[in-house]
């Protein structure tokens, strides 16, 4: 009798509140997971909680600030302050003698355009040089790195030679070579020149011509890129190739399906490096010389800052473009994993909420039961007394 009433009481107490909650949990969770979370008595199992970094570790990591400290000061001193000042200069007429700044708006920029009539065509030429040169350099560097990475006797000698451009290109030798007309011409230029001039707009034709006539000059610029690719290639696990070979993959397939995907991030790195290096080289673009001359020119700080800003924006745009092109896209599998993880997180959150509610309910239930027991006892006592007597 008492058992039945208890069960009924439990049902009554549980039913109205639990029905809604279980429904949502059922929706979100599989049966198994629910089973995992509660033991057979309906109690909450102890679940592994993600370990937070401890206090000691945190305190230790704070040491990192100490190591970073010089860089932070350096950034303020050598990057933050100059950029802010360059922006201020660009919009002002600066008089250093009296230390006065008068706001002139876009005048400095207008002045730059006015004084440099060829600016837009120069920028276009630079852009087309970059478009043609960057893929050429990157592909060439990759090919060379792959060849240097082969198991060949005497590759040490070749490596020594191939790292030589790092020293030469930044140095005066390049200036000497380009200043006189002794640059090596790989192809007979006259035919190509006439063909290109008739087919293409002038700014594009000049840059295409430039690529043809300076193809060897461009190759000199691939020293650092070869280094980067070589390092990347050496990090690829050789067992991947072995597995592919056992499955009958040819070298060509191995390249497209193992090598290229693995070094994809380095393609991005190299492309950006090439853009940055080429855009700051006086041999590639004469604009750099103009900008540098503007620093000490008579037009003032405003003019040179405005000039530098305009050029920087163009270069940054280009870097952004390259980054967009080469940025690795998340593949479908990764996307799916992310989706599932998100769902899991959501479910766990809901589950926690639900568990709290459940514990509360149980507490309430216990209370209700206890109350009932008391009532019953009281009733029994009363009744018992009555019946006994």
């Amino acid at each position, binding site marked *: 009798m008492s058992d039945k009433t208890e069960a009924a009481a439990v049902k009554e107490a549980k039913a109205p509140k639990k029905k809604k909650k279980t429904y949502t949990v059922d929706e979100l969770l599989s049966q198994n997971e629910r089973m995992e979370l509660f033991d057979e008595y309906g109690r909450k199992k102890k679940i592994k909680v993600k370990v937070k970094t401890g206090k000691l570790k945190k305190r*230790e990591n704070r040491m990192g600030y100490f*190591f970073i400290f010089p860089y932070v000061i350096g950034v303020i001193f050598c990057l933050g302050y100059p950029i802010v000042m360059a922006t201020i200069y660009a919009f002002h007429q600066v008089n250093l003698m009296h230390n006065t700044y008068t706001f002139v708006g876009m005048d400095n920029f207008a002045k730059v355009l006015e004084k440099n009539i060829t600016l837009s065509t120069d920028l276009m030429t630079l852009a087309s040089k970059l478009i043609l040169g960057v893929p050429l350099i990157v592909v060439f560097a990759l090919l060379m790195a792959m060849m240097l990475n082969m198991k060949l006797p005497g590759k040490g000698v070749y490596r020594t*030679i191939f790292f030589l451009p790092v*020293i030469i290109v930044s140095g005066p030798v390049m200036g000497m070579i380009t200043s006189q007309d002794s640059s090596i011409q790989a192809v007979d230029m006259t035919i190509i020149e006439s063909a290109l001039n008739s087919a293409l707009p002038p700014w594009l034709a000049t840059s295409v011509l430039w690529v043809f006539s300076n193809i060897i000059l461009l190759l000199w610029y691939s020293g650092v890129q070869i280094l980067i690719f070589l390092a990347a290639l050496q990090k690829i696990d050789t067992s991947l190739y072995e597995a592919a070979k056992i499955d009958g993959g040819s070298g060509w397939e191995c390249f497209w399906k193992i090598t290229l995907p693995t070094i994809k991030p380095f393609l991005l790195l190299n492309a950006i490096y090439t853009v940055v290096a080429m855009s700051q080289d006086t041999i590639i673009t004469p604009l750099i010389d103009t900008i540098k001359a503007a620093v000490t020119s008579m037009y003032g700080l405003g003019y040179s800052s405005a000039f530098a800003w305009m050029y920087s924006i163009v270069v940054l745009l280009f870097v952004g473009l390259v980054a967009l092109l080469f940025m690795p896209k998340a593949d479908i599998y990764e996307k799916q994993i992310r989706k599932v993880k998100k769902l899991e997180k959501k479910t766990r959150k809901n589950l926690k909420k639900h568990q709290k509610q459940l514990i509360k309910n149980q507490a309430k239930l216990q209370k209700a039961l206890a109350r009932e027991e008391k009532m019953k006892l009281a009733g029994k006592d009363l009744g018992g007394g009555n019946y006994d007597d």
Partner: protein
Amino acid sequence: MTSVAATAEPKAKKEKKVKVKKAKTPMTKDRFRKIMMGTKDDMGLLKKILVYAILTSVGFIFVYPLLKVLSTSFMSSADLFDSSVNWLPSKLQGTNYKTAMKAMDYWKALKDSFIISGVPTLCQVVSCAIVGYGLARYNFKGRSLIFGLIIFSFVIPTSLTLTPQFQMYNTIGWTGSLLTFVVPAILANGLKSQLFILICWSFFKQIPPVLNEAAAIDGAGHFKTFFKVALPSAAGGLVVVLIFSFVWYWNEQYLSQLYLYSGRSSQAYQFRPLINQLASFQSSFESTFSNTTGAANSKSINDSYRMAATILTITPLLIIYAILQKQFVESVDRAGITGE
């Protein structure tokens, strides 16, 4: 018995002969193809020859400017105008170097160059190693922000920060002194420091954390761990940074022109690095050889003097590269200078 032995011997001989023959005659079409075209495991001979040919020709392209400059530097002025002399000068003229040295004031300039590029390089190696270690070892808040800053400052053209920076040095009064190079280098913001920080970071990241823990258990503090554990195991990376940094400082003509020379009369220059002497080679050559010493000793400038000066400028770099070459190539091999 003897007969048996006699019969056995020729048999053995026969076998030997057969064996020798077997080793000699496997040149079937199939095997020939295998040798030439290669199997899956081994590169074929043809492919090897092709790769060597490509490597050699590209290697030649890479060395070409150096060779060209070198050969021109030994030519006499008659050779320069003789169209039949292309590569090998008819007579090695070592006096070109003597003349160029005199015009460049070589030994003083060499000393200045070593100061101008050596001191900032050392500062930069130390500071970049410290910062790179901090980024690689500790996982503090705001680390990604620092990385963002590093990449941003790498991408942005240097000419943007040049004007205000020059102005700043000018107002502080540092122009003309070494401080303009040393201070940014100490603060890990020198010439291409961002790249060096990334290189150091990628090297320090490869040190297993167990090593640090072991050092900590043995009672080493943060700095002792850095100096005694991290630095020695990343020595290869430091060599790479050292070479790159030294080369780039050595070849930086514009900055030294701007920071050291501007606003001063030519007598007051404290430093005259080689690269700037080379840039002003023409004028200094003329002033040494036509005006002061008179007509008897006067020489007119030509390409071979200029090339000799160029060779003189980069010779120290080549020597340093030759010394450190092994470590350099090895460290690139081992870990790579990648910002992964």
